[in-house]
């Protein structure tokens, strides 16, 4: 019973935080709500028996990726000007299309959930099982992801290198 209450509290927080994240005009406020939403999702993971996924959600999403988002916003440092632009973009009529489409998805989701029987399996998944399944049935996905990351690494290395050697490039151009 306690677990169900905790689940609904966490789920409500996640939903409210996500809606707030979408509707804020200040990018930093939106990001803080998004972080709260991620933390709530981590709590849900923990409750449904995936503590490893919960920990990774906090370490990677809330702790690293969102920090990089904040980092980019700090670099741009738009301030009040960004807020105004955002307010212009977030006109009520813009919301109609996405709202309709997500309404359809929501109905579909309700239909699927009503067809399910009973709660999702509540056995805890340990870190070892996650590791074994990553390098067992899902090894192809891991390899593809690592290739994608390598491409990103090479790309950023290339950009950084050109910036450092610009003096040499200019000399070659002369």
């Amino acid at each position, binding site marked *: 019973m306690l677990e169900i209450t905790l689940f609904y509290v966490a789920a409500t927080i996640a939903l409210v935080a996500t809606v707030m994240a979408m509707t804020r005009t*200040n990018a*930093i406020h939106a990001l*803080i709500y998004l972080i709260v939403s991620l933390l709530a999702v981590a709590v849900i993971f923990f409750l449904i028996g995936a*503590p490893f996924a919960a*920990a990774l959600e906090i*370490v990677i999403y*809330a702790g690293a990726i969102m*920090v990089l988002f904040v980092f980019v916003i*700090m670099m741009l440092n738009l301030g009040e000007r960004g807020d105004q632009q955002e307010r212009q973009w977030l006109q009520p009529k813009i919301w109609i299309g996405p709202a309709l489409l997500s309404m359809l998805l929501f109905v579909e989701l309700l239909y699927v959930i009503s067809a399910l029987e009973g709660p999702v399996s509540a056995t805890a998944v340990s*870190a070892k099982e996650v590791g074994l399944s990553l390098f067992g049935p899902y090894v192809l996905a891991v390899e593809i992801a690592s290739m994608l990351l390598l491409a990103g690494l090479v790309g950023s290395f290339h950009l950084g290198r050109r910036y450092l050697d610009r003096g040499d490039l200019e000399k070659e151009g002369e």
Partner: protein
Amino acid sequence: MSELIPVLLALIILIGGVIVAAVLTWFERRLLGVWQDRYGPNRLGPLGIGQVLADMIKLLFKDDWVPPFADKVVFIFAPTAIVVAMMMGFAVVPFAPGMMIIDVNIGLLFFLGMTSLAVYSVLLGGLASNNKYALLGGLRSAAQMVSYEVFMGLSLMGVVMMSGSFSLVAIVEAQTDLWFCFSQILGLIVFVIAGIAESHRLPFDLPEAEHELTAGFHTEYGGMKFAMFMLGEYLGLMLISCMIVTLFFGGWHGPALIGHWLPPLFWFGFKVFFVICFFVLLRAAIPRPRYDQLMSLGWKVMLPITLINLVITGAVLLWMEGAG
């Protein structure tokens, strides 16, 4: 009774953490004084410990001011994040057998998650201040902490491999015969350096480097909010020290032979005290590096060391498994 222990312990940590952090501010200054051949605060009370009280009264009664140009909500929220995250981190620290708030099988990851959440405090504080020095401090801390988090996590993987668990109790129990500071010496070195960088203390306090950024991310902070940042920093120092002892120096186990003479809690406290003194010594002895030196040290030295450590540990473990 056994259900009450975690609750009591949580209360002790909440109150004791704040008190120890306050005493540490004085202790650190006195110790720095000893090592730098001067006195430090020695006037108020015996050995000058009344300085803690004086500082607290001063900070508590200061005007709680929010700059008009700051982002008010975020500005007030920022200092609380680091204190909450660090206090949460103490939940998984095993002080002695049976003396911990919770023993989860993801204890180590929980600690890493909490330290990574503490970054927001510095980041948001720097951003909400709307001041260029604060912004630069926040930017530096973001890059520094995200980079050093990588090595921090990776350096612990050797320990996890050897003990076969993320649970901190299991890790301490795996060190009954031999502490991991011998078999995981590379991991220990990287973890200590990354720990200083994560708690942004001297010599790696570039987010607040006072000679170039006035006071970095907390330039605009004063009074209680500034005290919260300081509290968070000292809690972070304590948490990192507790973790170093738990992961590498055998936790509550005493040294061989004389280990049984004193209770486990004493050995844990003694070792944590020793590690904190070591951190203060580092602060007294090493000057601050330049920012690009810090980053290149991280990516060009620390990352290869951790990867080598991982490969060697894995190879030795597999070899021993094959031999045994």
